[in-house]
């Protein structure tokens, strides 16, 4: 039996939507499984977060405390990483965090599709973050924002340091997006490969009882992947905060 572990990442039009929705400059636009999952993630998270705090009980139910905890978690994270004036970016970072977190968790459901395992999605998110950082920096400091690329050092070192700072700044969207994408891709590929072991052993006649071993391993890896799903969403959000902090305060905190 030949199971391709990369097959789960294929972007294809969902069933019954084989015709393109519209055509832009000769490129057909389909409603794909990825678009469907993104819509589901956005609607589910927005509905949950609004409905959970709607009754606003004094003694919260489980749902309400989950919504409140995620709010407090992100607010504390922003406050500790960027200080008071970072809090005005709360809506953006909270949305980003919840979207990445829910995409990762929805991707863990067997048979569904992981939105964040597509470099196109994560790179778009990372570009959004870097654009926000650049715009914020120039709005707050004007042309002085360029001092971000000039560390405190003698002039002969600056010849070396300024290009390094520039490269490190402009590779940030790449590292930010590749980190999330590669983590999700590697995790789901690993699950599929071990799933292939179960199928191969289970259909091997007298060796079939041995298939329980990779099966148990999958359960363990699944738990690890749940941790990674949360951790990567957290890392994405905290790195956004750290980049914003640099744009807001330049080198003040160093």
């Amino acid at each position: 039996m030949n199971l391709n572990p990369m097959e789960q990442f294929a972007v294809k039009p969902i069933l019954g939507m084989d015709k393109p929705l519209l055509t832009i400059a000769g490129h057909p636009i389909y409603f794909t499984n990825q678009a469907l999952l993104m819509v589901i993630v956005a609607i589910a998270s927005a509905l949950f977060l609004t409905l959970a705090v709607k009754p606003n009980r004094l003694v919260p139910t489980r749902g309400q405390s989950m919504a409140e905890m995620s709010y407090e978690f992100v607010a504390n994270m922003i406050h500790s990483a960027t200080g008071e004036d970072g809090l005005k970016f709360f809506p953006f970072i909270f949305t980003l965090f919840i979207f990445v977190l829910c995409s990762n968790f929805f991707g863990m459901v067997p048979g569904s599709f992981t939105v964040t395992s597509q470099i196109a999605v994560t790179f778009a998110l990372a570009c959004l973050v870097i654009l926000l950082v650049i715009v914020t920096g120039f709005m707050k400091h004007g042309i002085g924002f360029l001092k971000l690329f000039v560390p405190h050092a003698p002039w002969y070192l600056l010849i070396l340091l300024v290009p390094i700072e520039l490269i490190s700044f402009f590779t940030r969207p790449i590292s930010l997006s590749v980190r999330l994408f590669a983590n999700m891709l590697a995790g789901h590929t690993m699950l599929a490969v071990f799933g292939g072991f179960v199928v191969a052993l289970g259909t091997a006649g007298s060796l079939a009882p041995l298939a329980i071993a990779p099966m148990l391993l999958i359960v363990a890896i699944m738990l690890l992947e749940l941790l990674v799903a949360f951790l990567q969403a957290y890392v994405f959000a905290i790195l956004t905060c750290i980049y914003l902090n640099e744009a807001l305060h330049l080198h003040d905190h160093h």
Partner: protein
Amino acid sequence: MEVAAAKMIGAGLACIALVGAGIGIGNVFGSYLSGALRNPGAAATQTTNLLLGFALCEATGLFGLVIALLILFAF
């Protein structure tokens, strides 16, 4: 045929990058633990740095994995 074989070998070699990530992640958590056991009071304040170090470290290894996937599927 030789190109296909070379691709497979190249992709395998690219995955050696994960060795460095493994060493790095071990180092991050090991250092955190030894620091946290010496000074448990300061441990809780450093979890952000811990996770950040972990993520930055892991990313470098995953870049190698991405190279491997690029060799296999993009060329």
